[in-house]
């Protein structure tokens, strides 16, 4: 079952076509890597999918709703974690969870149980009342991912979620991603790190507004006769 189907998704700014009629589908429970060089249209595409920007053309559904006409319904079914670390640093861990729970209209009881679950998952029980700003970056990012899932969304969009942390911490973060995907949540992730691309179930690579390649890491390496995703990427982008 597909949770995202994009058919000729397009975005133009005046004469410039940032996203040029891209089509792809993402299955439920899949970890979908969305790659591309800077300026390839990757950020514009993800902004359309999460409702921050209106598509100029194409028909796209996200979580079963139409992107142009039912964007309000979509918002309730998706979570988002941006590349800028996006929790409130001056609020405590608990206050952040409570706030986002409230924003998504969760009941007091649900918020309480979700808070307990998240604190447990990120192993922050002892730091629940600490300011988020005082946590190490890796912890903030895992907390941010957990908070993006506070309302049990179908899809979580992660926009370069692991910028600036070491490989070991990145690995920990990906453990969380796998656990979420195993529970049936779809993960749509953009990244600069090619080792992370290897972790994805399937990958699309955007070049100049179009999807230049799409497939599992294994298929792509075979197709471009490369040893790693890094080589695949370089061959496409050059």
């Amino acid at each position, binding site marked *: 079952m597909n949770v995202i189907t994009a058919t000729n998704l397009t975005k133009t700014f005046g004469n410039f076509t940032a996203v040029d009629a891209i089509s792809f589908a993402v299955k439920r429970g899949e970890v979908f890597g969305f790659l591309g060089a800077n300026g390839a249209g990757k950020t514009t595409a993800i902004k359309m999918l999460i409702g*921050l*920007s209106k598509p100029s053309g194409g028909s796209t559904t996200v979580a079963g709703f139409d992107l142009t006409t039912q964007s309000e319904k979509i918002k309730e079914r998706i979570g*988002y974690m941006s590349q*800028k670390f*996006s929790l*409130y640093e001056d609020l405590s861990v608990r*206050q952040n969870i409570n706030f986002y729970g*409230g*924003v998504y*209209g969760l009941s007091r009881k649900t918020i309480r149980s979700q808070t307990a679950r998240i604190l447990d998952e990120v192993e922050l029980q002892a730091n629940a009342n600490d300011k988020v700003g005082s946590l190490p970056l890796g912890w903030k990012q895992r907390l941010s991912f957990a908070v993006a899932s506070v309302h049990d969304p179908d899809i979580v969009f992660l926009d370069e979620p692991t910028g600036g942390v070491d490989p070991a911490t990145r690995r920990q973060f990906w453990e969380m991603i796998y656990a979420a995907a195993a529970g049936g949540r779809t993960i749509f992730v953009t990244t600069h790190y090619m080792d992370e691309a290897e972790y994805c179930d399937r990958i699309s690579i955007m070049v100049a507004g179009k999807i230049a390649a799409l497939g599992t890491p294994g298929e792509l390496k075979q197709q471009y006769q490369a040893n790693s995703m890094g080589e695949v990427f370089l061959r496409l982008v050059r």
Partner: protein
Amino acid sequence: MQSYLAFVRKEFYHILRDTRTLVILFGMPIAQVLIFGYAVTNEFRDAPVAVIDNARDELSRELVHELVSSGYFKLVDQPATADELDALFRAGEVKLGVFIPPDFESDFFRRKQTTLQFLADGSDPNYATTLLNYGSQIVGNFQQRHAGGPENYQVGVEMQLMYNPELISAYNFIPGVVAIILLLISAMMTSLTIAKEKEMGTMDLLLVSPLSPLTIILGKVTPYVLLSMSNALLILLLGYFVFDVPVLGSFWLLTGFCLLYVLTALSLGILISTKASSQQAAMMGSLFSLLMPSMLLSGFIFPITSMPWMLQKVSGVIPATYFIELLKGVMLKGLGMQYLWFPTLVLATMTVVLLSLSWFNFKIRTK
């Protein structure tokens, strides 16, 4: 509704966490009122005066006594020559010099023309003008008292200052400070807090959530409306109990006007934040486009009628101008709506225009 409450609660956490902002929010109005009340004042007492009395007769002594006993002036010296007086001025020891001509008394009673000379230190023009005015008023009274009689055809002028007979400067600065502080909290703080969400990237998260833009804005501004109103009350109470500034008109009308002005200022803050992408830009925008003109051109510090034509026009688009008019109308003159509908209408119109502009900007951004 629930998400709105969650939002307001979050905003309060932000404000309460930030002790520095809290100190500014409540310390500044108190500091401003006290500074304006005690330091920046047009009232004066015991201005140092030197008199060159060339007459040395009964009448001249009486005149000097009258000047000094008014309480406004203090006789510090009686130099013999103009050069000595000049030295006193240079040393800054006197602010006003009085020169009484010889034969003052005899000329006066023979109704010959006699002229006193007043010299004031013009390096502080406002102060000098005030000293001269007070001085000549005292001389005028003195003259009238002594020169009575049938053959005297002088036209007497009786002056009365309405609404503020004692020329208490607090009557002017309390409304002014209220206008500035409300602008600061409502416009500047709001634009700052919205710009902060943009800068930190949390705004994107809010826009991705099911919250409507209206809820976001309302959630953002609600705490600042409450803060502004409590600050306005604080300043008015300080004015009432410390400086005896009355509220002659309706208290509820006054509250209503404060609320209206807070809305105008909030919409200004929102408009600035739709344009500014960082806190610094928002800060600069509010300081230079709002705070400076409101201080200087709203009639708070300089009278509008004495401004050049161009600046009067600028003053006419500053919300604080109308708000100060409303405040003075209610507090000092006890006026009601039938006299104040015009400034009220202007503020309301400004608010609607500003909000529409913000909405328009916001729409463009999310396209």
